């Protein structure tokens, strides 16, 4: 691999990301499955970097998952987006950032359509007025929250307590980065680094000491596929696509996977468990899996936040081997605690894959 070739492409896909004052909206999937990731993200930006991230309780789902399951028409989708923008406008913001990749893709696509077809924008304005008596401006800047972490990767690096380096060997950790499909595949110019060699996660991982792996099925979808996962009958598609990626990355012995999409870490994590149950195969050595992190978790770990504060216990694949490699301190006895140190019953441990 010729690194300079990628650098040239990265140079072609720069994205303007404002420094401060964002209107922040959440991700349905992240809130359900990795709730602490959004908490960590806001903590880093508000408390550590002193940035203004405004959130209103009135914002809702963008409807993206329903739209991509054909449960709501495109016109409904656009009106829900318009309502989110109206909330932003009313709050006096013009920089919009979202935690979800499906949302991000839809925002990009919708703004693009409104730009190409002004009559569609007009109709959306009418619909929103009719339904909610609201008006909106289109955001001046649109960013996914991974874009923001990317932008401040050096500042975060300066505050870091740990590096993505094997403490015993001194070697950089081998990182697989996985980008949500709707981040840049639809509109390559909207993503940091473009669609083919996205730089958003590579930039973070490298800045914090890791070494990123490029493996044959890197660009491939995690296999979510909306209805292909949500309906049990279709899940063979979903698990098979994840399986394909793991088979492809296996020879590179990754230390962990980092993702920027809410759904991908869930699928890459849970399908490892299902593959182990169904075929007995595990990918992480010692009968364990390969830990799958959100980028907020990766940032939280290098910043020295307690792994159980940032939600590492809600992963099926145990992260302890990774914490040990980096040399991160943790108290195993606190892993399954509730609030205020209240002990919770331990989860079951599957036989097919070692989850500590």
């Amino acid at each position: 691999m010729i690194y300079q070739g990628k650098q040239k492409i990265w140079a072609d896909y720069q994205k303007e990301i404002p420094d401060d004052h964002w209107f922040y909206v959440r991700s349905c999937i992240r809130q359900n499955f990795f709730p602490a990731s959004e908490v960590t993200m806001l903590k880093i930006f508000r408390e550590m970097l002193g940035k203004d991230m405004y959130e209103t309780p009135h914002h809702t789902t963008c409807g993206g998952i329903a739209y991509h399951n054909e449960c709501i028409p495109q016109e409904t989708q656009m009106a829900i987006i318009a309502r989110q923008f109206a909330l932003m406008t009313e709050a006096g913001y013009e920089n919009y950032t979202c935690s979800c990749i499906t949302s991000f893709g839809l925002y990009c696509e919708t703004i693009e359509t409104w730009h190409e077809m002004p009559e569609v924008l007009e109709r959306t304005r009418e619909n929103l007025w009719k339904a909610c008596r609201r008006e909106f401006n289109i955001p001046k800047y649109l960013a996914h929250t991974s874009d923001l972490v990317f932008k401040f990767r050096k500042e975060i690096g300066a505050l870091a307590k740990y590096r993505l380096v094997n403490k015993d060997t001194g070697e950089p950790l081998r990182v697989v980065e996985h980008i949500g499909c709707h981040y840049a595949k639809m509109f390559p110019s909207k993503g940091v680094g473009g669609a083919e060699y996205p730089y958003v996660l590579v930039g973070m991982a490298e800045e914090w000491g890791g070494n990123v792996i490029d493996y044959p099925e890197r660009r491939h979808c995690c296999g979510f596929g909306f209805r292909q996962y949500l309906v049990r009958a279709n899940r063979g598609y979903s698990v098979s696509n994840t399986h394909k990626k793991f088979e492809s990355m296996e020879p590179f012995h990754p230390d962990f996977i980092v993702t920027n999409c809410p759904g991908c870490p869930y699928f890459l994590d849970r399908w490892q468990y299902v593959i182990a149950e169904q075929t007995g195969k595990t990918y992480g050595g010692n009968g364990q899996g390969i830990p799958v992190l959100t980028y907020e978790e990766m940032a939280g770990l290098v910043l020295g936040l307690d792994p159980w504060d940032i939600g590492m216990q809600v992963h099926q694949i145990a992260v302890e081997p990774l914490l040990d490699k980096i040399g991160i301190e943790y108290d195993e006895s606190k892993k399954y605690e509730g609030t205020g140190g209240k002990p919770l019953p331990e989860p079951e441990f599957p036989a097919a894959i070692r989850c500590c």
Partner: protein
Amino acid sequence: MIDFGYSLSKSNALKIENLDDSRFKALHKLEPDAYKCIGCGSCTASCSAGVFTELSLRKTLLSLQRGEGKGYIDQLQSCMLCGKCMLVCPRGINTRHLILSICKIYSVEQ
């Protein structure tokens, strides 16, 4: 064991690096024209049996080239050796002879 209600699917993708084309090479020895097909589909379009069955000489020949074979040989059984394909082949391949050679080589192990 947990019943998830689904399982891993088999990939449809042709994987050329694992391709075993020893039989096709044997066929090529018998039929020097085996590589000459340009995939125009004339043979399939004119095929008497193809109207009633799945038979497609174009697909069969191509699949054999790609190391596949299963199923396609069975399809050739419906060929009546009428030779219309031979008349229309723009590359002048002796398709009747080719079909007989395919059957000879590929039916050995099956």
